């Protein structure tokens, strides 16, 4: 009994020690955002600001710039719209592929899954030309169908798995009561696959919220930028970087993700592990 508790203490010590290394960069980000701007290029560099040094001036600067509110709203709008459309489309695809046989079903599913192998960015040239043709360059709304299309394969793959775990008898009972294919989708599939749809949606939100290369390529207008583009916009403007501003804005942009993560971490884990443990 005693030996066991000593082992436990050692395990905790190792885990906490390793954790300290893992979270060090994030603590440094927060501590830098609390330093006065003059101290950012001081030498020797300090990990933490002195107690009297701590200031909120970087946060005040960010909050006083109207454009960052707009960047935030932009990110939020694009992420929510992409997540909702991907959830709806992928649930419909997952349901139909899991439940009905139709010509080309296996081909469709294999093809959707295979596209997950293709690095998303390799399609950027034809997608850019497509965006030009559709006249959605420099348009926020134009980001949504692209993000939706990127997240469909993984979402469909996961939701199909969840639908397959719903007993078919429930579908049949609904048909007996005179329900249609759409009734089953609305009354059985969506409510029962909700945990799966939720976990997929959290990932899709993260994807859209942090997406950088595509938004950086098609959005030029300052007021149409999403948050990651706004953060990277601190570079190249001036000779030296205002790291305090960069990290204050970074902390702000991490907050929504942190909140979603802490409240939904059960779904996070479900979404990660459903596909991985079966093998």
């Amino acid at each position, binding site marked *: 009994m005693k030996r066991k508790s000593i082992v436990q203490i050692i395990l905790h010590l190792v885990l906490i020690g390793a954790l300290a290394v893992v979270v060090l960069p994030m603590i440094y980000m927060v501590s830098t955002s609390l330093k006065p701007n003059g101290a950012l290029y001081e030498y020797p560099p300090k990990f933490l600001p002195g107690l009297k040094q701590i200031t909120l001036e970087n946060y005040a600067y960010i909050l006083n710039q109207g454009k960052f509110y707009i960047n935030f709203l932009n990110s939020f709008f694009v992420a929510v719209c992409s997540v909702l459309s991907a959830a709806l489309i992928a649930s*419909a695809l997952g349901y139909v592929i899991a439940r009905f046989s139709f010509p080309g079903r296996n081909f469709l599913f294999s093809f959707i899954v295979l596209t997950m192998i293709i690095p998303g960015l390799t399609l950027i040239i034809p997608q850019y030309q497509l965006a030009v043709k559709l006249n959605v360059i420099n348009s926020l709304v134009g980001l949504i169908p692209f993000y939706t299309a990127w997240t469909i394969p993984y979402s469909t793959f996961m939701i199909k798995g969840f639908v397959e775990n719903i007993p078919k008898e429930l579908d049949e009972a609904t048909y007996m009561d005179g329900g249609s294919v759409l009734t089953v989708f609305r009354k059985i599939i969506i409510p029962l696959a909700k945990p799966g749809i939720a976990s997929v949606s959290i990932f899709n939100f993260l994807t859209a*919220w942090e997406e950088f290369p595509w938004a950086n390529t098609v959005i030029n207008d300052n007021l149409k930028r999403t948050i990651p583009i706004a953060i990277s916009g601190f570079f190249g403007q001036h000779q030296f970087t205002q790291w305090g501003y960069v990290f204050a804005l970074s902390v702000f942009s991490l907050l929504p993700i942190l909140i979603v993560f802490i409240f939904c971490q059960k779904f996070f884990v479900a979404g990660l592990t459903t596909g991985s443990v079966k093998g």
Partner: protein
Amino acid sequence: MKISKKGKLQIGLLLLPGLIIFGTFTLYPIIKLFVMSFFEWDFGSIHGQNFIGLQNYREVLNDKYFRVSFANTIVYTLVTVPGQMILGFLTAFLINQVTRFKVGYRVLYYLPVITSWVIASLVFKYVFNTEGLLNYFLVNVIHAAPQNIHWLDTRWGGLTVAMLLGIWKGIGWNMVVFLAALQTVPADLYEAASIDGANALGRLFHVTLPCIKGTILFALVMLTIGGFNVFTSVKMITGGEPGHKTDVVLTWMYHKAFGTGAFGYSAALSFIITMVLAILALIQFRMMQQKNP
């Protein structure tokens, strides 16, 4: 079960939005990319010019910058994939043994995963700055280096920073995946092994690892794809500098496409990368099937 005509119509209705979005924004670009790779096609010319067969492919494969970026990508993948798998597995293994605060550890170790690539890259760039915190620590505090190391302006320095970031950001994902797998290993197998006289290391190699082989291969496939997808970190940390020595395949492709307008070249490059990944994934899937008869 027979499906009525109305039912068939509704099935079609459910499929339609997905087919339209997927067809327009994924399938069409894939086909277009393939076609472009055989044409002399530059920025500005919306319509392709001359059909040049495999010329673009030849140009890519003979390009020394492409070769450097390809080598960098391979090194990045070879280092970061085992790196995050081993550290992620060890973390999961330890968390699986503790009796308290399991959820707390899981949440905290996962934080780097949900930090966006842009932000994580900037933090690393700041830490590894020549006059930055890490160099100060290495030179003036523990005296491990005689002078400040130029992390960000050399090929291997820049890649090291990108690889450390990749490993740091990936540990949490591996931890969650392996933790779930560890919980499926039947406890009586450990007991049986203990009775047979296996020590902790013996149980790890003869019970745990064989039981989670499926998960190991799943992680291997996903992380290899992830390794080839590396873009934002390299773009933000070094931007391929100095002289494209730290470029990976995607940053080099992006530079050729949007920096010089060589669309045909970039299309061929994209296709080569996709083929390499497809072959790698196929080999790994084969391994997975062979080891799970």
